[in-house]
């Protein structure tokens, strides 16, 4: 078993009197897809926001690459190589693919844009993800389909050597063919050595791409399973709280 690149231990977070995370543990491994599942209100979003540095945890230990880190701001998180692709994608429709991928971190020389370098890196990244559906990297994002937008958002996340990529419901709004495309993309991402944390409600998707499944139930990690040795019914049981697991298997 390889070492996890990121490991959360005993994470606690509350909002006033409401405690949302009550001592959560989570591990993600390079080259593996870890699915994070749980019903609405289980604390998935809070857990992710902490990882992204948007809403720091109250207490608990985060180790990244074997060192303890404090994810206090988004800048710290992205500096480590932790990138989040949110459900609403956050792309600017009026900008093209290259401009979106580099938004907020443009390459400049002499104070002006170096469009050549940016275009090169953007198309290299898309190519490394074997993206075949995009015709030109200079297309405006408004002209792209839902699946293509998801692709651009993921490519944006991995542009700068991301090591942990968190995907929030990447297939929620997509049709069958596009879902398949995005799941293939998720797989390729992991094959490149990125640790992927995949949040999804769709168990079919999860069983298709995930290596591990972690189940949150009311602010506690109730199960950490290996996809290969578990069943759908088990996972549903953990999500709904009708089944419990003593220790973590992963």
């Amino acid at each position, binding site marked *: 078993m390889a070492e996890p690149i990121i490991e959360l231990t005993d994470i606690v977070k509350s909002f006033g009197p409401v405690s949302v995370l009550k001592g959560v543990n989570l591990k993600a491994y390079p080259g593996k897809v870890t699915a994070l599942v749980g019903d609405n209100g289980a604390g998935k979003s809070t857990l992710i926001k902490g990882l992204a540095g948007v809403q720091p945890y109250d207490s608990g230990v985060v180790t990244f690459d074997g060192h303890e880190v404090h994810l206090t701001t*988004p800048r710290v998180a992205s500096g480590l190589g932790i990138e989040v692709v949110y459900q609403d994608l956050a792309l600017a429709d009026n*900008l093209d693919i290259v401009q979106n991928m580099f938004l907020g971190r443009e390459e400049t020389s002499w104070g002006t844009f170096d469009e050549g370098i940016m275009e090169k890196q953007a198309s290299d990244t898309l190519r490394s993800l074997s993206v075949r559906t995009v015709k030109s*990297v200079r297309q405006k994002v408004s002209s792209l389909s839902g699946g293509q937008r998801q692709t651009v958002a993921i490519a944006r996340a991995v542009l700068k050597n991301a090591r942990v990529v968190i995907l929030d419901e990447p297939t929620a709004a997509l049709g069958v063919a596009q879902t398949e495309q995005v799941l293939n993309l998720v797989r390729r991402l992991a094959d490149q050595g990125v640790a992927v944390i995949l949040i999804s409600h769709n168990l079919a998707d999860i069983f298709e791409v995930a290596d591990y499944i972690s189940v949150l139930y009311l602010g506690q990690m109730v199960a950490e399973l290996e996809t290969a040795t578990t069943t759908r019914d088990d996972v549903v049981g953990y999500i709904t709280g009708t089944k419990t697991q003593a220790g973590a298997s992963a």
Partner: protein
Amino acid sequence: MSDFKNDGTLTGHVPAPTDLIGSGQEGSLMDQVRAWTQRVRGGDMGVLPAVGGFVVLTILFTILVQVVDGKQTFLTVLNFANLAQQVAPLLMLGMALVFVILLGEIDLSAGVTAGSSMAIFVVLIARFNVPWGWALLAAFGFGLLIGALIGFFVARVGIPSFVVTLGLFLGLQGVQEVLIAGSGSIPVRVAEIRAIQNANLEPWMGWVMLVIVVAVSAATSFWDRRSRTRAGVPNRTIALVWAKLAVIVVLGGAAVFAFNLNRGTPATQLGDVTVGGNQQAGVPIVVPFVLVILWLGTFVLDRTKYGRYLYAIGGNAEAARRAGIKVVLIKWIAFVICSGLAVVSGVFTASRVGTVDAGMGRALVLSGVAAAVVGGVSLFGGRGRLIHAAIGALVIAVITNGLGLLHLSSGVVYVVTGAVLILAATVDALSRRRGGGVRT
């Protein structure tokens, strides 16, 4: 992109890599033209409708004026020199507004910012004997302060810009009235300021200006190509660069040549006495002012982080915020730029009219918004360029100028301008719907 073929020119352009993602830069001149036609058909018409409108109106007025008057007073060098000076304040105000319209905001007070800053300018000179340089500095300082104030309320406090600037629109009119109080109007007695809109460049300076424009345009094109070649991505065929430069040389050369002809009034012979007549030749001084500001502004919008972030916020403010962009700061600065350029517009007006009164700038702001919209700037934000506002302003100015030469009243001018505005917005909306029905 799969039908890429080398056009065989001396371009040094890099052939498309053999992968499937293109960049829209590959292919011969014909491929580029085809791609451009497709973009236009897809609703991305840019400046095309406004340029078309300008050309059609010019032809129309040339014919109508000839028919009505029996002589040509519209398509003359004198009238076009006039037009350049008429349009300058509106054009500058339109360009100023682009910076806030790109954010999806509005500055209704831009006109009165111009008016009240010019009121400060003339009052400081007339009543307090301040040297005009310092007075001008004070006027700009006041304008920038107004911009910072609007920015504070809009970007920081979060009040809609419509409300904030409507308040300032009313308030600054009051300031202007108090400043001008009793005088009716105060004359601008600064020769240097008056010269901007009333004097011409020496003929040779017009040619130097054209050479600079061509050189700057060529330099930026080749700079871009070098960046792309270095990165190993394909360049557009170099024929496009030559074509662009050729257009600038031909059109610019024709304009400079025409402006350098004597357009003064010929002298009258009364018996053996020569009466009146004057020499007037050269490019109006306001033209280089406008070109420099247009170039600088376009540079900032297209090639700097500030400009890119302005578009990003206009397109999706939440995406910009998550990308780590300081949305509040960028918005704030946009209002300061807008007010600063509005003061430039005020200087142009003061120079042309020669006096500053209590109502200056009040009516101009809505025409400025109209200029931007006619040119193709989207009021929803995120789409439009400075050149759009400039050409939109030209369209509106041609209408005013042409209808005036047809001896029609200002009432007719308003009606026609309004109709053109709605027409422009309709053309834009329809083309967009056909292009796939995206918002804005």
